[in-house]
């Protein structure tokens, strides 16, 4: 169920676009929905970030993963237990760009004589890294459709990405990698009992959706060619707010575009928001300097404590008898 429902949902979504465009709803799928989804994405994304940020960070709670700054002769680990701003920048960069924490991953095993052993386990890290970086490169490559003159960095990306120079048009290595890594990410959820039990339908849905987007994109490039000039015209129209749906692009393009729109609309309300959330995580983005610099809790509550005076009032006699100093002798 957790797997089938999202799969059906993605197929259904693709079919909607296909049927819609076949029925002549080019303008709806080519213009209205893209604008609408972009609006949802932007407003939703900003809202979610705002919603998180408006909850304060009352305590300084970094998870320290290395030696803290301490006595001068003890070597500190600035990236794993940052003592200041630049350490935090370093730690966050490693986290965001290279998935540092995931790199640590181990797999625990119960040995036959009931002991535990821990092996290094880097597959998730590799697949995750490949998946995310490939997606980024692919998104950047799409920049060429938005401009009449292709910017230099995109050309550079394209030539690097296509260095294999096999197939015609040249195979982009990231197309291959994103398919492989996303497939791996789906299969690993299905292959292990632990992963099956923790996975929700909302974990499969975005993977299927992204795979469908990738496949429709790939088929446009390598198999079912679409009219690139018409695509560019449409996109230029969209970016200059003078959009008219051009006629014959090919239904597969609209399927691709519509699924991207669905992804954009789905994004803000989903776990995909980890893209923004990773920057806000208080266990990673704070310096471990809470004894050196006072951290302020904006809602620090007034709490009634048991004062020393109250304590002495209760125990004064016993304290005097035991020769303990007291504030008041009576």
């Amino acid at each position, binding site marked *: 169920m957790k797997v089938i429902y999202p799969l059906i949902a993605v197929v259904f979504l693709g079919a909607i676009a296909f049927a819609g465009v076949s029925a002549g709803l080019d303008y709806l799928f080519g213009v209205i929905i893209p604008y609408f989804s972009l609006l949802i994405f932007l407003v939703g994304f900003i809202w979610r970030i705002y919603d998180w940020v408006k909850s304060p960070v009352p305590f300084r709670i970094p998870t320290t993963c290395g030696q803290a700054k301490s006595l001068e002769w003890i070597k500190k680990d600035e990236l794993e237990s940052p003592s200041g701003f630049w350490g935090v920048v370093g730690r966050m960069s490693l986290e965001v760009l290279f998935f540092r924490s995931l790199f640590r991953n181990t797999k625990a*095993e119960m040995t036959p004589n009931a002991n535990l052993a821990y092996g290094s386990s880097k597959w*998730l890290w590799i697949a995750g890294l490949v998946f995310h970086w490939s997606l980024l490169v692919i998104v950047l490559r799409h920049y060429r459709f938005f401009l009449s003159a292709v910017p230099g960095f995109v050309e550079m990306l394209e030539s690097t990405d296509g260095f294999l120079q096999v197939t015609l048009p040249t195979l982009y290595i990231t197309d291959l990698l994103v398919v492989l890594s996303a497939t791996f990410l789906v299969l690993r959820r299905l292959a292990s009992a632990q992963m099956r039990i923790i996975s929700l339908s909302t974990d499969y849905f975005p993977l299927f959706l992204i795979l469908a987007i990738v496949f429709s994109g790939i088929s446009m490039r390598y198999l079912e060619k679409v009219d690139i000039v018409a695509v560019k015209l449409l996109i230029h129209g969209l970016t200059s707010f003078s959009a008219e749906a051009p006629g014959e692009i090919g239904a597969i393009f609209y399927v691709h575009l519509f699924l991207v729109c669905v992804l954009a609309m789905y994004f803000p309300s989903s776990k995909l928001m980890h893209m923004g959330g990773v920057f806000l995580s208080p266990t990673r983005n704070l310096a471990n300097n809470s004894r050196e610099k006072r951290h302020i809790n904006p809602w620090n509550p007034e709490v009634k404590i048991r004062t020393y005076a109250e304590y002495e009032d209760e125990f004064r006699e016993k304290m005097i008898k035991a020769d303990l100093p007291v504030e008041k002798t009576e």
Partner: protein
Amino acid sequence: MKTNPPELSELTAEYELAPSLLKGDSPGREWLDIPVVFQDGNWCHAAKPDVIESLGFNNPRKWSPENEDWQLEKGWQKIVLDGMKERLGQFRSFKLFMDICVRCGACSDKCHFFLGSGDPKNMPVVRAELLRSVYRHEFTWSGKLLKGIVGARPLTEEVLKEWFMYFHQCTECRRCSVFCPFGIDTAEVTLVGRELLNLAGANINWISKPVSDSTRTGNHLGIEPHTFKSVVESLAEDIEDQTGVTVNPTFNRKGAEILFITPSGDIFGDPGIYTMMGYMILFEHIGLDYTLSTYASEGGNFGYFTSNQTTKKLNAKMYHEAERLGVKWILGGECGHMWRVVHQYMDTMNGPADFLEEPFSPITGTKFRNATSTKMVHIAEFTADLIHQDKLKLDPRRNDHLKTTFHDSCNIARGMGMLEEPRYVLRNVCNSFNEMPEHTIREETFCCGSGSGLNTDEYMDIRMRGGFPRASAVKHVKDKYDVNALVAICAIDRASLPPLMNYWNPGVSVYGLHELVGNALVMEGENERTEDLREDEMVDFEPEGPVREEDE
């Protein structure tokens, strides 16, 4: 009838033979469909009504988790959900961690309770889902709309029971958060989960009673001032009997330079008392001008396992007393969660401590720049500095009867980043120190299985399971290097690791770091030492000759 804890052979057979999720066997159903069953050994006694009343918490009553009816008050769901909403607005961590988990599974086999039980709900991701599912149902439109399809479920009494069970099978050790690509910290979820349980009136006595006692008497064990004094003085007498050196601890003394606060377990619990003796010998050796307080007579803070307001209330005594006594700064003993609170919460909650001075060692002159605001220094930092500046006369051979390994306490490692200081001290006070295998020490250290207020006897089944990963790592060095001494810098470790070792690794004893310091210190005017502080025979060595091996 199953015993609590199970016979060792039974549990070992279960680990070896029984199918388990850890070994890749599917439980055959979704975690949502696995019912919560309370049985001997997997639940802690409910907090007694007088305790709850004295603390002013909700719904004091006589009840038991194993009863069908928990006698929750009418409208408890609203109380809990309102509480959840309030906390979503107070803690960005909590809100964020409800939203951004992608269930990648990196955390799933990192929890000691999962490794020791194979229970799917002990995978950190699922532990958070216990709460997240309700969060989705109440606070997200997709959850309201699509319910179970997106993993949302309403708050029922069954769910509350599940929370009670599994937020007491999390010791807030943060090991999972080390591995999470977004730094999701289950401790943040459990902390809130326990606050919500507290609002619903589902408290455990092992936590609430110490909170109530600590409020009244200043320490978890409920020891009144005159008894506190006489117990410490009897430890001083023991020191005199064994070493011939007189130590004179003072109490509530105004004008002392330093206020020393340590967990009450060091003063009243075996083997913690030997660590306390170690502190006193050290302070005598260096002539430290310090005082103990009978009012701030507790370093630990079981309030931290209850709610953030209760944490603040109990913690406030430290600064309150330091100000009253007019000391310059505070020195803190060996304890795990005490230091999590002191390091990451105290200054924020109860500071600024501008009536204190920036801490510096009166012996070496070293300024503890990492504590300039909080003005509280950890004893391991303090002693490491003393040794580094060559201010201590140490004979590590006096610990030659001990082959040691070091257990990083969770809070010290992952909530403070103190990894090297205790190791430096340990290497200088003993000659045999062997690390446990990688992935079980430093920032990847395993909890003792009884942290966060769970070290109670009725909970032995869960504790022996939760402590299994730690025990398994100790077994490794026991077999390989004949390790017989597990050194820890945490009072809960000192209370909970001995039964864990007796169960899994008989022959391994548990020591505090400063107990070994106390053994190794060569005091002026001391008797010839042939026994350590717990009156175990030291091995023979020539009293003359080099007293301290070269630093590495």
